[in-house]
């Protein structure tokens, strides 16, 4: 398990698109701090976090067929699925903390990390990074605000519940399907 999670961590830290997303997110957050928009900077920071989560999971399925190498190296799928989530949480935590600090709202760290893990779960299920990005961005940036505005009185489940549900679905999907 440690070995597998370490290998998954190596995958994440050597992927250029994640570093690029990270740098862009920080740059945009810092710029926006100067501009000081009405709703705060966290909604913009969340865009970067969600893209990062989707790419971290979805890059396995991009051109090149890396997912097959992953499954040949670790054919036990439940082990691989759990190692992936653990590695992502550990690698992403400092990134999300710095983002929240830059955004001026360190309290947002936990929420952003949960959003990132949920995005990764969507990326695993959808397997197509562009499509998955579309799904999570639409859901978070258009869907959620609209629902909050129009149905303010409904007692929706909290963020950890959504993330846990998404992770369970993604692990089940990952273990059952052929790749």
């Amino acid at each position, binding site marked *: 398990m440690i*070995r*597998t999670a*370490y*290998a*998954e961590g*190596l*995958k994440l830290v*050597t*992927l*250029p*698109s994640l570093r690029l997303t990270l740098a862009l997110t920080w740059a945009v957050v810092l710029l926006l701090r100067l501009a000081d928009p009405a709703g705060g900077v966290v909604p913009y920071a969340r865009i970067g976090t969600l893209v990062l989560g989707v790419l971290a999971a979805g*890059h*396995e399925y*991009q*051109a*090149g*067929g*890396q997912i*097959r*190498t*992953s*499954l*040949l*190296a*670790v*054919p*036990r799928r439940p082990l691989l699925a759990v190692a992936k989530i653990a590695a992502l949480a550990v690698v992403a935590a400092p990134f999300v903390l710095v983002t929240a600090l830059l955004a001026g709202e360190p309290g947002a760290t936990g929420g952003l990390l949960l959003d990132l893990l949920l995005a990764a779960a969507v990326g695993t299920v959808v397997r197509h990074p562009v499509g998955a990005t579309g799904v999570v961005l639409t859901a978070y940036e258009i869907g959620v605000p609209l629902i909050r505005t129009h149905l303010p009185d409904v007692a929706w489940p909290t963020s950890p519940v959504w993330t846990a549900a998404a992770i369970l679905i993604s692990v089940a999907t990952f273990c059952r399907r*052929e*790749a």
Partner: protein
Amino acid sequence: MITVEGVTRVRGRTRILHEVGFTARPGRVTGFLGPNGAGKTSTLRVLLGLDRPQAGRALIDGRRYAELERPLTVAGALLDGSGAHRSRTARAHLRWVAASNGLPKGRVDEVLELVGLSADAGKRAGRYSLGMSRRLGLATALLGDPPVLILDEPVNGLDPAGIRWMRTFLRERADQGRTVLLSSHLMGELAETADDVVIIDQGRVVSAGTLAEVVGDHPTLEDAFLARTASRGAAW
């Protein structure tokens, strides 16, 4: 030693594999042949635990691939493509693969040297030519120095020097007592490399034996192959 026994696989309503059975023995190069769509790749995927069969079993040294704890030390596989993400360097790719099976870091440079990619190890996999991608895939298969090699079209994209290198390399591996299972469409090449031959057509094994047995009275392996798989029509 590879043992495939009564493997049947159905996808949707199509029966892709029908009681496929054969063995690939240590010390020999076994050629695995078949027309496109005959079930070659499906058989290899079942053997490697990527797909699940509805019946039968495929074993590597007596165990299912999916049960192996450090599978890369038991069997190395080269399927199509490099198996690497296009934006990762070859070295970074091999590093994570090595880490996943607890293989020493130093092994990465050894296999890069072995397949002739040392000078290009820092390049991104997406910038590799087809030939270099195949060599990276081969390097991945060799990381764990496994006693069993399973290679799908290994000379695809290699140049003549690379093809000759691969021929010698596979021969040496077999002579060391390893098991080499090799699928290919190149009958001329296979006739020079394989000791044993298994031919699959429409999901069934239609011929198996030593190269001489399979060729039989036909002038070439190509003729023997086309005669045994003629049911699919020679006109493509």
